[in-house]
């Protein structure tokens, strides 16, 4: 399957001000089954949330690289592997697992369509016949509350016949999903068209452009959080 991926992450102004690293981590890569997009956002309240996010992405990527079908079961299994990895890291450090708390989104795009396994916030938008939110953020009663991979929360899964996919961290939720209707911003259509003109595999030039886009003041005026956006299109 021929596909293009574009991905970028930018540290939020809050972490920049504190001299702290970004707590978002991501991966976008081609595999025999198609492409995969992974995004994790370490909990700000957790002592090692950023480490948890990095470990989670790495473990999920390694697991998914072994996958033949890139199916929703494989996405879920990759989340389970990442969860086990965080528990091992916590045990090794003599710390409680919640110190490594992170969200995790593992999504694939194959000939069969889009599949996602998801714990916490951040969201997945897919385009089949139309744009739709394939996996919505898991939010609590109050703003900012969510679930984490380390707290044995349910791994939510979804599939859809789709030819384009976007995965992003919670820093972009309010910019790209309309709160009242839950509908994705129309701009995804335009972004997916840009990718169709992109290079096969991971397009580094477009990823650099996306990075500049996420670093512009228009983003920082709306959120001080880390922002990560991964896009994939079947050509």
């Amino acid at each position, binding site marked *: 399957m021929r596909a293009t991926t574009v991905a970028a992450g930018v540290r939020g102004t*809050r972490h920049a001000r504190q001299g702290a690293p970004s707590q978002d981590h991501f991966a976008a890569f081609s595999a025999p089954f198609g492409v995969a997009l992974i995004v994790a*956002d370490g*909990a*700000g*309240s*957790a002592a090692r949330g950023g480490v948890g996010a990095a470990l989670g992405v790495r473990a999920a990527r390694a697991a998914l690289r072994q996958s033949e079908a890139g199916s929703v079961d494989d996405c879920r299994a990759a989340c389970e592997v990442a969860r086990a990895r965080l528990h091992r890291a916590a045990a090794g450090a003599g710390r409680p697992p919640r110190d490594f*708390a992170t969200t995790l989104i593992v999504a694939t795009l194959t000939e069969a369509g889009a599949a996602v396994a998801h714990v916490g*916030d951040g969201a997945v938008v897919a385009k089949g016949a139309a744009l739709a939110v394939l996996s919505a953020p898991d*939010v*609590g*009663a*109050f*703003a*900012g*509350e*969510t*679930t*984490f991979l380390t*707290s044995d929360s349910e791994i939510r899964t979804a599939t859809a016949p789709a030819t384009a996919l976007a995965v992003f961290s*919670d820093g972009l939720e*309010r*910019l*790209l*999903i*309309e*709160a*009242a209707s839950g509908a994705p*911003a*129309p*701009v995804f259509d*335009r*972004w997916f068209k*840009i990718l169709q003109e992109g290079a096969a595999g991971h397009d580094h*030039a*477009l990823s650099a*452009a*996306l990075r*500049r*886009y996420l670093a*512009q*003041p*228009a*983003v920082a*005026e*709306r959120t*001080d*959080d880390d922002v990560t956006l991964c896009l994939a299109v079947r050509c």
Partner: protein
Amino acid sequence: MIDQQPFGDGSEFIDNPEPRCPVVLLLDTSYSMSGAKIAALNDGLLQFHEEVASDSLAAKRIELSVVTFGPVTVLSDFGPVTAFEAPTLEPSGNTPMGEAIVRAAALTRARKDSYRTGGIDFYRPWLFLITDGAPTDDVTAAKKTIADGERDKAFMFFAVGVEGADMEALSALSVRAPLMLKGLQFKELFAWLSNSLSKVSQSRTDEAPALDNPAAPSGWAVAGE
């Protein structure tokens, strides 16, 4: 060749309403607060307002209400920090703390309902009480309101005693241990409050964010009863 910025200029973003963080300041304005105490409280309030307003994201998210007692008066209902004018408090009357707490909880409930109607996300509300006395009214209902609110995570209730406060009465009332203000360190208290609210209003966590311990040696409080 790729455009300088093919992805856009920001005009494609959705302008959702900011999530709100409602805060009620419950302030004792009984006669016993007269003199240096009320002057320091007024100074602290002014500074608090300036600090919150200068943090642009916190200013968009924190909504302040001020309820004084006694008598119980809603000096300002919830509104954006930018529109808030720090009042100059004047002491009068006794200390109907129980009634004030019940009123503050009701204001908070109504505010949350209006957020829900408007599709606005919100953080867990804070009720922040400052007193130098003991309640002069029946606090049975207030005590239950606080216990229920904390249990249901409907709000967080903090009590701060100023010199002369009945810390035992505050302990009996509050689920969280009350704090005793060191001297008249209202400025330090309000600096902590604005800093904590900035953290809360920008947090993303399933637990309370790590706040500085006000009862640390460098803090503005000593742990109460």
